[in-house]
């Protein structure tokens, strides 16, 4: 039994502080020499369990890189990253994959679904990859909450953009992960579908205690979160609890960046 499997099978005791993930002094540089880009420059952040955290910052500030590092999708140059008790920097590639499968969920901006699988199969994907079946009650509840009852047998090409993203959220939640990462999940949706998705994510935190980390550049989207952390030049520069759109806008302005440059 690997250390990871051990960790997975024996749940962390209730007494441990409610921290879902942590990044400590993370450095990440892409390329080398003249072309080197320092995407993360000593970023440290703590993701409390049971909260909806939004990550904001100007385009190119390292939001995606930070989330990828936290999710074990990418390696880092220095610093440490923990998901629960597991030190990602110490895990092998295979163990990181298993950890993603068992304990993390993902929603990307686009291309979230496998075209040849139906909606139901896409939702169950992380479990089936692990050779397990979804808990029928939980599946029914999720599908119900996401309003996908009549769409389960459809392939992604037969679903609207909003439905596709909801299927992706379903897939992220099906394994009851410790943590869900969403990188601009509403980036390709119109405002009505975006709002529905954001409410759903907020409700997941409120009613199920689901920990969520969402990257966004939209102050309105960020206002659905319990807390917003601000990133600039690869570092956490600010943080705002209980955000409103106006407060977020004000903070963003303080980051010394023209508003129109804020984006993905």
């Amino acid at each position: 039994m690997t250390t990871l499997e051990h960790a997975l099978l024996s749940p962390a005791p209730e007494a441990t502080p409610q921290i879902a993930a942590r990044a400590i002094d993370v450095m990440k540089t892409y390329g080398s020499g003249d072309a080197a880009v320092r995407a993360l420059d000593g970023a440290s952040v703590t993701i409390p369990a049971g909260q909806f955290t939004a990550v904001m910052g100007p385009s190119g500030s390292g939001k995606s890189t930070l989330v990828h590092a936290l999710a074990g999708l990418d390696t880092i140059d220095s610093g440490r990253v923990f998901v629960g008790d597991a030190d990602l920097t110490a895990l092998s590639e295979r163990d990181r994959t298993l950890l993603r499968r068992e304990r993390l969920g993902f929603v990307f901006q686009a291309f979230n679904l496998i075209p040849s699988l139906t909606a139901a199969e896409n939702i169950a994907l992380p479990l089936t990859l692990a050779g397990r079946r979804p808990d029928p009650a939980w599946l029914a509840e999720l599908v119900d909450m996401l309003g996908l009852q009549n769409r389960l047998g459809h392939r992604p090409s037969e679903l609207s953009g909003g439905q596709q993203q909801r299927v992706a959220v379903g897939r992220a939640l099906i394994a009851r992960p410790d943590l869900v990462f969403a990188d601009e999940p509403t980036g390709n949706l119109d405002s009505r579908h975006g709002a529905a998705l954001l409410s759903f994510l907020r409700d997941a935190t409120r009613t199920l205690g689901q920990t969520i980390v969402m990257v966004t550049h939209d102050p309105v989207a960020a206002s659905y979160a319990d807390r917003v952390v601000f990133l600039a030049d690869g570092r956490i520069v600010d943080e705002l609890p209980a955000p409103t759109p106006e407060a977020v806008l004000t903070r963003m302005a303080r980051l010394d960046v023209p508003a129109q440059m804020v984006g993905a």
Partner: protein
Amino acid sequence: MWRLTVSNALAHRSRLALTWLAVALGVAFVAGSLVLTDTSSQLLDNQFRTAAAGVDLTVRTAAAFNSAMGVEVQRAPLPADVVGRVADTPGVDRARPIASGAGQLQVRGRAVLPAGPTILGTWADAPFTAYRLRAGHAPHGPDQVVLDAATAREHAVRLGDTVTVSATTSKQLRVVGLTGVGDRDGLPNSNLVLVDLACAQTLLGLGPGVTSIDVIADPDVAVADLRTRLATSLGSGYAVTTGQDTAAASAAAAKQSISYLRIVLLALSAAGLLVGAFLIANTFAIVLTQRSRELALLRAAGATGRQVFTSVLGEALLVGVTGAAGGTAAGIGAAYGLRGLARGAGLALPDGPLTVNPRTLLVAVAAGTLVTLLAAFGPARRAARIAPVEAMRLSDPAPATARRGRLITGWVLLGLGVIQLAAAAAFRDIAGVAIGAVLFLAALVVLGPVLAPRLAQAVGRPLARLGVPGRLARESTVRNPRRTAATAMALALGLALISFVSVLDSSVKAAVGTSYREAITADLIIESARNEMLGGLSPEVAHRAASLPEVAVASPIRYGHWLDRGMTSALTAVDPATLPHVARVRMTAGSLAALDGGGVVLAANVATERHLHLGDSLPMTLPRDGQQQLRIVGLMDDASARALSTSYVISLATYAAHYNENVDASVMVALAHGVKPQQARTALGKAIADFPNAQIRNQAEAAAGRAAAIDQVFGLITVLLCFAVLIALLGITNTLALSIVERTREIGLLRAVGMTRRQLRSMIRAEAVLVAAVAVVVGVVVGLGLAAATLGGLSSDMPLVVRVPVARLLAVVAAAVLAGLAAGLLPARRAARLDVLTAIATH
């Protein structure tokens, strides 16, 4: 535009690499086949030209034809007085009588068996021959022999050693000299055994006769004039030919088997190129689909459809020409490999430096280039039709689905093909079977995109049980009908040919073996170990066997060639008195004994086909006397004809009257009452010990020997077909590698949500195996069907029952599936190495 074409081809060189390899491999096969057969012909020409170098004219007895099926007709010996008549003819400078024929050589009690003949000949100095003494002196008297230096070296024979030489009779001879031929140490694949004239006459049983007279003309006489003069003075019973013509005729006979080999090799390389064409078409289709946005952009920027078309064909031209050039170079090396393979299958090909004709280079490069261009034509036309607006489309184009027209064409072709095959098989019409086969294969190519996904769906059912990777593998195979079809069909074609050949092999073998076992009742069979087409046993063998007390009957069997309305055919000669004791010949009319009167017995099916009846006479052109009318004195059933190897049987007496050949193909032995086979075998072995090529076999061994000969031929074809299969497997690797480029995002997503590298690898490998499995199903079914139809079509010659070699086919299936797995290894590794993030980040 050309600059763009070249830079495009270079930019996509990794995607085109396997295509290039496929072209090169196919062309290498073509070039190798041509080089090998050219080389063999050239070497044979040289060999015979060297042998006849100094001779102006050759005098022999006349014959109705020179050679048949690659075997030179043996002529009657020239009476001794002809030598004097020739020598005394004005204009003849010198005349040299020659006695030569096939012999055998034993060194230290062991037979020397070269791949070609052992030539027992008469020694002569230059200018008559190209023999050049390397050591010792020329042979004189009844116990001296000269061997070629190469044979002597190979078998460690030194001057003064004693060897055994046998033909019609057998002798112990002392080696007094070693010779070369021109500047070479011997003749390829042959042994030279040279004695003086009297000794050769004794060994060959010619009495005072000679086989030919070599003539050198006076320097001031024109050879053509002398030839006419000699021909008129000698009369029509003699043939006078120039040295070159004699050499050319001998070479032509020897080259006949090479021309068969060339046909087989070229047909198989065509199969390789065809399979390669599938791969090329597929690669271009995939690469162009992946580039469709870029092409649309080009169109939007003002490129015409024609420009796009020529640019794609330009790329194909580049791949074709360079691939063909590489393949041609490799083919020259491949000729050596092919020579080894053909030799392994029992073909005696001469050794020597390779001949590369300019024609070979031209044909090989043109074939490779043309196939590539033709294969890229369809994809290029589709690329030219891409509309500029597609540049603006966000999503990737959906894979094309089959159109109604294609469906209708396909099913109609398939229906016609099946009907044609069934009808041709029922009416025993082999040409009709060929037409049906072409229709049928065309239908499969057209219907491929419809059938392949359905088959993949069905064959891939067990994959679903392997979890998500298995299911996804099946889905992606089903999702791209055209791609899956092209990849699988190429492999299916190769596998169909292999299963076709396997079924043919085992069915023909079974038919031959069964009829042999049913008809031949001999306890022991003596045959030549050399498998000469017309046999190679001295009549002395039968004679000695018959005189043993253990033997009740020794019945010899001979074969001969004859011309049947201008076409070469074969007949069997038997002893009507003793044959019934060693074989069960079932007569449907007349009797075997009636052969004594000089007639012929026909296979019943041949008689029916040719509307011949008992008592009719059959015109046969026989080598010594030309056209003869032989009365039909009996009809035998087809199985008996098969056991006797031909459909025409005459008596040994008739044979002796019309043929000069004096060798038995086999001697069938029935043992005296109460004699144990083992005991008889020992006695026989002792009695014929000085005929090293005579092998004693029991019935099962003799049947197995025939089966082995059939296996050799089909084995060679199968090995060469594996080459086409190899190209098809490259196709699987290629298609998968290209589709992985296409599915980067999907793979990234799967990895992000928790697919391990191992699962990913097994998914890609499963795809490869699935394509291979679809190909196996199609290939084996098609191969079996075509084989059944072909056997039906062939059974006018011999009734054949379809025998499916189950174990062998299972081995082919297993090998193909495993090879499919191997073909998936490289793409699987490449997929597993994809970085999760680049996969996600591709927008």
